[in-house]
């Protein structure tokens, strides 16, 4: 395993498919894109490259919390997402930052439009993911979203997966 070269096209396919799963609220299939013990972070807007274990964040889910988040979002009692937001994700500027033995570091830009309560919210940011490279594909070891805004705009909460 590992040691095979991951092309940008393969990384793009992975990210596009992930975006589709999230836009379609296929959250169990989305969770399966993580390795066991995979993590997810959404950094705060003052993020300066620090490790999420030493500073605040918008999200820093270990695998247990990720599972809890998916379970919650599938519940009708997740009021902030019942009814679900409609989301529309655009992903571009995909770059392979570094290829390691087991993992590949991938960066991309995103724009997510979210619609709820007859209002529109835009989320602009960057992904910096660490992906585990398997013979049969890629999986998240660390999925990190970095919002670009100086502060989250009015109503632009993070009740969905950024």
């Amino acid at each position, binding site marked *: 395993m590992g040691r095979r070269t991951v092309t940008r096209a393969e990384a793009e396919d992975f990210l596009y498919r992930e975006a589709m799963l999230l836009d379609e609220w296929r959250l169990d299939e989305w969770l399966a894109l993580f390795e066991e013990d995979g993590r997810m972070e959404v950094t705060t807007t003052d993020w300066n490259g620090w490790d*999420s*274990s*030493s500073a*605040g964040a*918008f999200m820093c889910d270990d695998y247990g*919390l990720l599972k809890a988040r998916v379970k919650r979002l599938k519940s009708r009692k997740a*009021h*902030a997402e019942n009814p679900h937001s409609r989301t529309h994700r655009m992903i571009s500027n995909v770059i392979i930052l570094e290829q390691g033995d087991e993992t590949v570091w991938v960066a991309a830009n995103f724009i997510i439009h979210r619609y709820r309560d007859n209002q529109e919210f835009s989320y602009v940011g960057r992904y910096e993911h660490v992906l585990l490279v398997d013979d049969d594909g890629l999986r998240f070891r660390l999925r990190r979203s970095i919002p670009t805004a100086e502060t989250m705009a009015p109503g632009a909460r993070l009740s969905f997966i*950024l």
Partner: protein
Amino acid sequence: MTQLTHTDPGGTPNRSLVHEDWDALTFKVHRSAYRSPALFQKEMSRIWGHTWLYLGHETEIPNPGDFKSRTLGGRPLIFCRDSSGKIQVFFNACTHRGTVLCRHSEGNTKFFQCFYHAWAFSNSGELAALPGDEAYADVPGFKERHRLRSVPRVDSHEGFVFIAFDPDVPDLLTHLGEAAHYMSLTAKIGPQGMQTVPGVQLYSVKGNWKLAVENAMDGYHFAPTHNTFVGYLRETGFAVTDDDQYAYDLGDGHGLLILTGHNGRIGMVWEPRFGEGEKERTAAKRQEMEERLGKELAAEVADASRILFVFPNLLLFDLEALTIRQIEPVEAGRTDVRAWQFVETGEPDEVRALRIKTMVSFVGPGGLATPDDIEAYEAVQRGIEATADSADPAYDWSDMSRGMANEKQGNQGRSIDEGAMRSFWRQWSRRVEGDGTPGA
């Protein structure tokens, strides 16, 4: 959003927007209090203009020259530590023509220089450099008259820095009253003190600021609103209960919920999701706290979670871990929120990581619980448009009478009643609807 003017509620003994009747056991708030732009301006002037406001924590600017720029009550400010180590709070406007002096959100500097005409001020406020000063008469006098404008009052309690735009407010400790004690309890958790860390949650909600206060003082919403979070805790092996939890009116609008059954407390009350390793450390930490504080005080600090509201803009969440939340009203239907993780100085890395993971999983716009609170504020803000100027004026009032019968019998109000909200609204009414003087 349409702007609606407040109409006379009608059929009521007076024009107040807060009606309290201990015979009928009713407490009602008129919904224009959340909607009216005119009332918002009045709040800004009568509350934000004339009381102590939470600005920030001393540990945000630990070193000489550190600064943060921050808007409070709509006024841009510089919160800094000068070269001698003293905390200074300046209006962030050049004394020359009013340009925003410091356009960075944070940093470290000896001088703040205005880009427009290059006037430079020291971090203690002196006008240090004035290009082409030969064109001014009496340069030393001119410089003295144009030193950076300080906020009239600055004081701190346990590292929490407050300011007032009115020079005549009473002393900070007088304002804090009983709330000061609960801030002190929280400050005693860490043997080396407490501090903020970077990673500040900056977000904004489409709801009136008072909805954010009500929500924090409202234990009644916890079970239904946070159904999924309670379910998550149960799966980790912790059963949430609302039994034997009480709300306290700390006077002058300050409120407190003491929560014994909602969660563990990292280092103080163990629960399974903290992991086995924490069990032993929690016992050792309790011993350390008892040696340092005495058994009784250690128990008061450690045993129960607390949500403290310091009127009008500070919420201190002392729960699984700690968050300082500052609310900054922007307009009647919009509130900016700033939240800092508050941690024990010098704690082990793995505890710090656990603390942040645990707290962020609950609070903030990306947590498993706060998004549902935000949904609540925003749904109220939209919903109260429905009854504005309705044919029957009675429709346009919100009810906050829960627990009044119990309270009338002289019992301590429960956290799942609405007593803490009522004490907040009483103070709001005194401030906004009274003659506007403190305590009136």
